[in-house]
């Protein structure tokens, strides 16, 4: 196994560079076959999203695979890489494994914990698999990276807290209503922000929408956009009993919805909770509404506060996610290393066995005629010596698997036993 990774991401390169190096999904298969045609490259995968482009290759036959990957990138983008040198990072071997695991777990993302990246890695894996570019070790590495990514999502809360205002509103709604399926949203004041919030809510499952606006035409427009129902501005309070989530963003200079208005609607609601998202400044909903049982009012500052708390929560969980990633990466590297050892162990055993048999044949004449029992005893004796001699080196080989200095040890032991370097 000889892994190399060349990449740029949101930290190393501005968007102008990233879009230049981006490889569209429809062209990934062609790009992969270009990469695979390079001399010595056995496996490859390309991960190309709006925040990163990474090319990973496994070239066990090459001493240094960098020129091959460099050549691929330059030819594919028809450019001179020297202009991008400062943005590119190169990783090798274990560092590739660890990096890919962090990427799949969304720890290397611009927004740590964002959920898309795991799907993007999976997509890249599928494409590479279909293109026949994943055959052995690299397939194992990517596969295990997906396993690690899923484990991080399951066992840490790194991806659970919303860190933008509209999503924080959706998340709060979910903390109140559980699922948003079939819930009714009431948009009061048809502005850009309320439209955005309504869009987030409907894409999370909220069903019917009422829209009210001082100019009724604008309400009709927005209602049509969401297949909702426009409500006349003076009929707002009649609809409070029907709504679960109320988003307010009117330009009114004073409170529009008072405690008494909401209190009146409560009996008809049979104590179902109601959630006010007040993104208007000055505010539309009297904060005293929050004192009512089952009514929750969040203004823009409250949402900001939630976002802040969420960011802290994510950072705390990210530390734990790093632990999981390190653990999983080490496990994979150890497994790959011990698998890589198998040919070395077999070769050494074969070599010693060959010597033993040759010497046995040579001495057969000197022994004269042996009884079958005697012959068996000699066989056992020589076999036992061979096993004893091999025991030390083999357990040494196995115990160090996965350590960085292990490669040197393997080479040394091969040389001591006179076994040539393998050609994968």
């Amino acid at each position, binding site marked *: 196994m000889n892994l190399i990774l060349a990449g740029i991401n949101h930290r190393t390169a501005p968007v102008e560079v990233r879009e230049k190096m981006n490889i569209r999904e429809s062209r990934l298969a062609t790009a992969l076959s270009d990469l695979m045609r390079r001399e010595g490259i056995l496996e490859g995968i390309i991960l190309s999203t709006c925040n990163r482009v990474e090319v990973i290759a496994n070239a066990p036959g090459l001493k240094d695979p960098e020129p091959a990957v460099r050549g691929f990138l330059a030819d594919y983008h028809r450019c001179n890489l020297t202009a991008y040198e400062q943005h590119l990072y190169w990783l090798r071997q274990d560092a590739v494994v660890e990096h890919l695991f962090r990427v799949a777990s969304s720890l290397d993302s611009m927004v740590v914990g964002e959920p898309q990246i795991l799907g993007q890695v999976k997509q890249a894996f599928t494409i590479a698999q279909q293109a026949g570019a994943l055959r052995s070790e690299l397939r194992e590495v990517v596969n295990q990276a997906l396993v690690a990514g899923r484990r991080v999502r399951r066992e840490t809360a790194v991806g659970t807290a919303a860190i933008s205002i509209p999503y924080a509103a959706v998340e709060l709604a979910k*903390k109140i*209503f559980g699922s948003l399926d079939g819930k009714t949203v009431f948009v009061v004041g048809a502005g850009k922000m309320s439209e955005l919030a309504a869009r987030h809510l409907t894409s999370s499952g909220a069903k019917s929408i009422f829209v009210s606006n001082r100019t009724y035409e604008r309400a009709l427009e927005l209602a049509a956009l969401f297949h909702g129902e426009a409500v006349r501005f003076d009929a707002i309070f009649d609809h409070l009993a029907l709504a679960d989530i109320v988003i307010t963003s009117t330009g009114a200079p004073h409170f529009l919805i008072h405690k008494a208005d909401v209190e009146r609607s409560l009996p008809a609601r049979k104590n179902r909770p109601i959630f006010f998202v007040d993104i208007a400044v000055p505010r539309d909903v009297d904060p005293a509404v*929050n004192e009512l049982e089952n009514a929750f009012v969040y203004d823009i500052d409250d949402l900001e506060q939630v976002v802040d708390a969420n960011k802290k929560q994510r950072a705390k969980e990210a530390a734990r996610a790093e632990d999981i990633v390190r653990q999983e990466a080490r496990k994979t590297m150890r497994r790959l290393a011990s698998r890589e050892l198998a040919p070395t162990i077999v070769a050494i055993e074969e070599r010693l066995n060959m010597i033993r048999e040759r010497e046995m044949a040579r001495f057969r004449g000197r022994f004269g005629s042996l009884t079958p029992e005697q012959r068996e005893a000699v066989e056992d004796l020589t076999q036992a010596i061979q096993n004893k001699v091999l025991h030390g080196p083999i357990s040494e080989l196995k115990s160090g698997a996965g350590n960085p200095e292990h490669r040197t040890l393997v080479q040394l032991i091969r040389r001591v036993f006179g076994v040539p370097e393998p050609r994968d």
Partner: protein
Amino acid sequence: MHPDILWAALAFYGLGIALAMPSMAHGRPALNSSALAALGLGLALNSAALVWDALYLHRLPLTNVEAALSFLAFCVAAAFFLIYLRYRITWLGILVLPFAFVLTLAAAITAGPVGGPGALRGLWLTIHVLAMLLGYTGLFLTFVAAVMYLAQSGELKSKRPRALYFSLPPLEVCDRLYDQSLIFGLICLTTGILTGFLWASRDWSGFWEADPKILASVFTWIVYLILGSTRIRGHWGGRRSAYIAIFGFAAMMITFLGVSFLSSQHGYFPTISRTR
């Protein structure tokens, strides 16, 4: 009861709680597999202890207080698994699992020779005890749901999310768990009280209706009955019914443990002879 198996169950419950604590406290989406394995083993051993006794006695081993405790521990732990599978509420374990642990501990400490005093025999009585214990489990879960509801609605009202906000389930899930466990608990409690009355009217003499445990049980039952009916009609929402569920559970615990020591009929203790 077989004390060794119970102690082993207790050890695994304890280990499971320790392993699960970080996931529960931080509200992670799932419990880690080692914690689930330990808890599962604890539950398996707990049921093994019950099966052991059942085989020995050829009937449900609910003959004495330690058996009842061990069965209750089993119900509570099993309920945790069921709810975890259904709702994935990891935080639930913080309240539920230590309760199962304490019940198992109490059962293991008091465990005597199998068969015990053998005070409780007969089909009606078995149904009575079984229904009461299942009812306790259900209403304990109502209590837990109520506590989670109060805490989460407090977090949401405060608008300053702390650790609890992240780890507690949505209000609606607390509500649903509350209603489901309340209905289940109420049905079991009603069955338990009715069979108890049936059996008592047949087997007991004297003015047994004045037994403190019976009075306390009927009082608790009425509290829950009122609570159930207001919930169904949607009259009381959220916080008020949550407080009542907590009060109801406290009353029930006093009924189950406290009054047992005062009641002559319900003492479970062999020294107090039954009148016939």
